[in-house]
Structure formats: structure tokens, C-alpha cells
């Protein structure tokens, strides 16, 4: 009960503070919330199920692109474009994971990376459709009208919309991880062969959670596209996939709150670093190397345990 009160207070604080922040910072907050949704969706895969995806941006970007394309090229209303984008993300997840979940341990990482790279290169090379590297502008933002006297097409208004969606996603995912399905995911992460011996169709769980994660990533992707009214292949890049992975790891995988924290940290970090240097790629790469080499054992303990377990079972 106390946690609920604290959470409600935090939300109220955000709503109030956001009103009076300079719009640059409101934008940052909005971005952090969007990445929060994105990072939580990866946590479902990585933290809860033990699936290390290096291609999560594929769902983020495909929802964004499809929604943007439908608005720009077909002139359709957002009521059509938004669900269509989400459908695209889930479809991509459905196709990719038919392949990625077929393979042996260690391969999943590479396959998810490869498949999302293909999508990225498609966005880059199909200039006539996507504008290639130059990206695509999205002239309109969804018009949610106004609510309680706040015009929702302002920066602050969009922030409120994103906050609401964020809270809804958070609530949904919290129920999911506490559900029978969620417990099964944990079991699969800890010991997949035992799960099968107990009667679980492990593949089905991994597949369905991939679809769900794809859906939430797609939601984040669309929110992102409409935030900046602009979209580029960066939304499909390995850069983004690696960043969201970092958010989950920095924030402690398998907790939902951790990735949210990680998202905020990364947005702040990115902001600070880019004011001092253009070498963001170098900084990020160095962070990955440091984390990989020196991260507390606990961070990777689960995956090591899983690998050892898999090895022992086949002996």
C-alpha cells in the first residue's frame, strides 16, 4: 500500500514539474519514459525469459516506420496508422522468432542481430520509400484534442500522453510478470530442460513473450516517432539495440524497475556526453567493454548458470 502511495506521489510530481520545465527538459523526460517502455519490453525477453536479443530495435523501428509511412504516403488517419504500426511490429516479431528460436544456444544473439541489420539496411537502401539515411519527416502529430484543459499537441501535452501510456504499459507488464505465464518465463530462464520435464512447452512461451515484447517495443517506437516528428534508420540500428540492452543491464535485468532506471540514466548520460564530444559511439563502445569485463558477477550469473546447465544436460 505504501509503495502505491509513493508511486502515485511520484507521478503527481512529474505531472506538476513537467508543466514548468523548459520544453527541452520536458522533451528529455518524455524520451526517458519512451525508452523506459522500450527497455521494459526487452527486460521481458532478457531479464525474465533469458533471451539475449541484440536486435530489439527491429520492433521499435518497424512500428515507427509503418505508422509514419501510412500517415505520409497513404494520408490515412492516425487511428489506422497507429494499430497498423503495432501490427507490423508484432508480425516482424512473429517472423524473426520463428527463425531465432530454432537455433542452438549462443546463436540467438547473432540471429537477432543479423535479422534486425537486414531490416536496417532495407530502410537505408530503399530511399524512394523511406528517404534512406536522410530519414523522413512526419508532419503531423496525433491529435488527441485536449484533456482537463491541457492542449495535448504541445510538448507538455505530449509528455502527459506519453506518461499515461507509460503507466499503462508498466501496469500491464507488472501483471504479466506476476501471472502464471510470467512465472513460467522465470522457470525457463532458470532451467529450461526442467520446465519441459515438468510439462511446459517452453518454445510456446518464448515465442509468445517475443510477440508481447515486440508489441510494447512497437508502442515505444511509435511514441518516439511522433515525439520528434521525424524518423530515420537509426531507429532500426544495432546502435539502438545495444543501447536498450545497456539500459536493461545497467538497471538490473529481471526487475522492470531496473530498466526504467537504466533508461533515465542513459538519456541523461547521452545528453551530458554529447555536449562535450561527438564521440558518443566511442564512449558507448567503451562502456560496453567495461561492463562486459568488470560488471559484477551477479549481472551475468544467470546466463552462465544457464549455459553450464545446458552443457550438463547434454552430457
Amino acid at each position, binding site marked *: 500500500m505504501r509503495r502505491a502511495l509513493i508511486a502515485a506521489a511520484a507521478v503527481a510530481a512529474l505531472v506538476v514539474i513537467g508543466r514548468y520545465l523548459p520544453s527541452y527538459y520536458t522533451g528529455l523526460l518524455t524520451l526517458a519514459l519512451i525508452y523506459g517502455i522500450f527497455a521494459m519490453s526487452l527486460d521481458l525477453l532478457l531479464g525474465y525469459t533469458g533471451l539475449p536479443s541484440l536486435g530489439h530495435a527491429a520492433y521499435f523501428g518497424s512500428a515507427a516506420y509503418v505508422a509514419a509511412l501510412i500517415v505520409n504516403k497513404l494520408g490515412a488517419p492516425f487511428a489506422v496508422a497507429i494499430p497498423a504500426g503495432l501490427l507490423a511490429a508484432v508480425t516482424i516479431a512473429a517472423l524473426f522468432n520463428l527463425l531465432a528460436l530454432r537455433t542452438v544456444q549462443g546463436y540467438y544473439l547473432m540471429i537477432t542481430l543479423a535479422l534486425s541489420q*537486414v531490416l536496417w539496411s532495407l530502410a537505408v537502401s530503399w530511399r524512394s520509400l523511406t528517404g534512406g539515411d536522410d530519414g523522413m519527416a512526419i508532419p503531423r502529430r496525433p491529435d488527441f484534442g485536449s484533456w482537463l484543459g491541457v492542449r495535448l499537441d504541445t510538448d507538455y501535452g505530449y509528455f502527459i500522453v506519453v506518461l499515461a501510456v507509460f503507466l499503462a504499459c508498466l501496469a500491464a507488464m507488472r501483471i504479466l510478470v506476476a501471472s502464471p505465464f510470467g512465472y513460467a518465463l522465470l522457470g525457463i530462464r532458470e532451467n529450461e530442460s526442467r520446465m519441459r520435464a515438468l510439462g511446459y512447452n517452453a518454445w510456446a512461451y518464448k515465442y509468445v513473450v517475443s510477440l508481447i515484447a515486440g508489441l510494447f517495443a512497437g508502442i515505444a517506437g511509435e511514441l518516439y516517432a511522433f515525439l520528434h516528428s521525424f524518423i530515420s534508420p537509426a531507429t532500426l540500428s544495432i546502435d539502438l539495440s545495444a543501447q536498450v540492452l545497456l539500459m536493461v543491464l545497467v538497471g538490473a535485468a529481471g526487475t522492470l524497475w531496473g530498466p526504467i532506471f537504466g533508461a533515465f540514466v542513459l538519456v541523461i548520460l547521452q545528453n551530458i556526453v554529447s555536449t562535450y564530444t561527438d564521440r558518443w559511439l*566511442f564512449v558507448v563502445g567503451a562502456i560496453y567493454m567495461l561492463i562486459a569485463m568488470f560488471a559484477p558477477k551477479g549481472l551475468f550469473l544467470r546466463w552462465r548458470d544457464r549455459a553450464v546447465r545446458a552443457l550438463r544436460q547434454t552430457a
Partner: protein
Amino acid sequence: MTLQGWVVNLLNGFSFAMVLFLLAAGLTLIFGLLQVINLAHGSFYLLGGYVGLAIIQWIGNFPLALVVAFLAMAALGAALQQFCLARLYKQDLPQALLTLGILFVAADVAFVWWGGNPQLLPQPELLQGGTRLFGIGYPIYRLFLIVMGIVFAALMWLFIERTRLGAVVRAGMDDEEMLRGIGISAPLVFTGILALGAGLAGAAGVLGGPLLGLHPGADFEVLLLAFVVVTVGGLGSIKGAFLASILIGLIDNFGNIWFPQFSLFTIIVPMVIVLALRPTGLMGRA
């Protein structure tokens, strides 16, 4: 397409395939046999190419550039294994993060040092120009690549099939006793294969340089191509890597002609088919 066009494009595909094979051979040993995830493989290509370019610009000797690039990258690969990867034995995600970090860092360093403009490695004088093959004009350099590729494939085959170390590599590193039996320690084999793979990638950078050019992003492209080849050919199989290189090289070439907007898409198709029907690859161990 005319007959001449077909022949030229087939040869183009083959010559590209040979560069791919250099990359894939290393990756299939590293990823397929040692089960080490090395995303920095693309970096070895790029850095090797740039190093070779520097040697050529400085001294003007192509063979020297090739050797230096190979050795430099081999040294980096060995260092990577010794100081970093060895500690992350059998930990997929940390290995991926580490090598991804290296990929990014190397890409940025290369960008700062050599700039963002695509550079073309000059062909060695001896191999410049064209020749006529059965009445069809064709660049000598590409023919050289094809010949070199076949020679290299033969050497690799000899190594794998006919040497004791090759037998160990074939056995898939599963048998520690076998390793001890021929007096080689497992860590040494790991370092050696990482060095070999990295060196080959660096050599690919120099040899492929005149063809493909060097530019930011080439490391990612090359990594993806090598991965597709290794997947199609089968993890750990040199023969598979050779066959798959040819297949992918041809598909990529003709794909670029017929469907230029879908460049990478065309080579994904064989990968998808292989994963769907025979996940262990054409010649992989089931």
C-alpha cells in the same frame, strides 16, 4: 543478359566470394568451433584494410601491406583472446557486449583517423589492367583473387584434413585429452585460432580493398555477410564456408544487378531457407 555479361558477372561473384571466404573461414572456426562470439570480426577487416592502405601510401608495396595487415590483425586477435575473451569463457552475452564495444570503438577510431570518405585501395601494379579470357575482357586483379582464393581454400583443406592440429580442430575442440595428447594446450589453440581468424579478416580487408573500398560501416556490412555465409555453410565447417561463400557471393552480385534496393535482403533469403530447413547449415554437424 548477354553471354559476356553472364561470364563477367559470374566471375565477379566468384572473386567477391573469395574475399568472403577469407572472412568466413576465420569466423566459422571462431564461432563455430570455439563457440566464441566475436562481433569485432568486422573491425579486423576494416582496420586491416586501413593499415594496408597506410603501408601502400607510405611504402608503396602491396605484398608488404598484405603481410603487415595480416600480422597486425593477428596480433590484435591474439591479444583480444588472451586479455579479454579468455576470462569470459562460455559467457555469450558478455562476449557479445565486449566485442560489440570493440566494434564501436574501432569504428570510431577509424573514422577519426582515416576520415569518413570511402577510400579505395590501389591495386598492385603487377595486377592492374585487364586481360582477355576467351575473347572477354576481364580485370586481372579479380582473376588473381579467384586463384588466390582457391589456393587458400586448398591450403585450409590440407590443414584441416591432413595435420594433427587440423584433426583436433575437426573434432570440434570437444576432446581435451586429444589436445593434451598432441602436446598443445587448449588456451593456446584458442589464441591461435583467434589470431588466424583476425589475420585472415585483415588480409580480406587488403585484398578486398581494391574491390569494395573502405568506408565507415564496412565493418558492420562485412560482419553480417560473414555471419550469413557461416550460417548457410554450417558452423565449424571450412568446406561449408567455401561453398556458402560462392553461393552468397553470386547471389549478392546478381542481387545487386536485379534488385539494387534490396541489397542485403537477397542474401538473407538463403539464410532464412537454411535456418528453416536445415538449421545446422549445408555442411554443419547435425
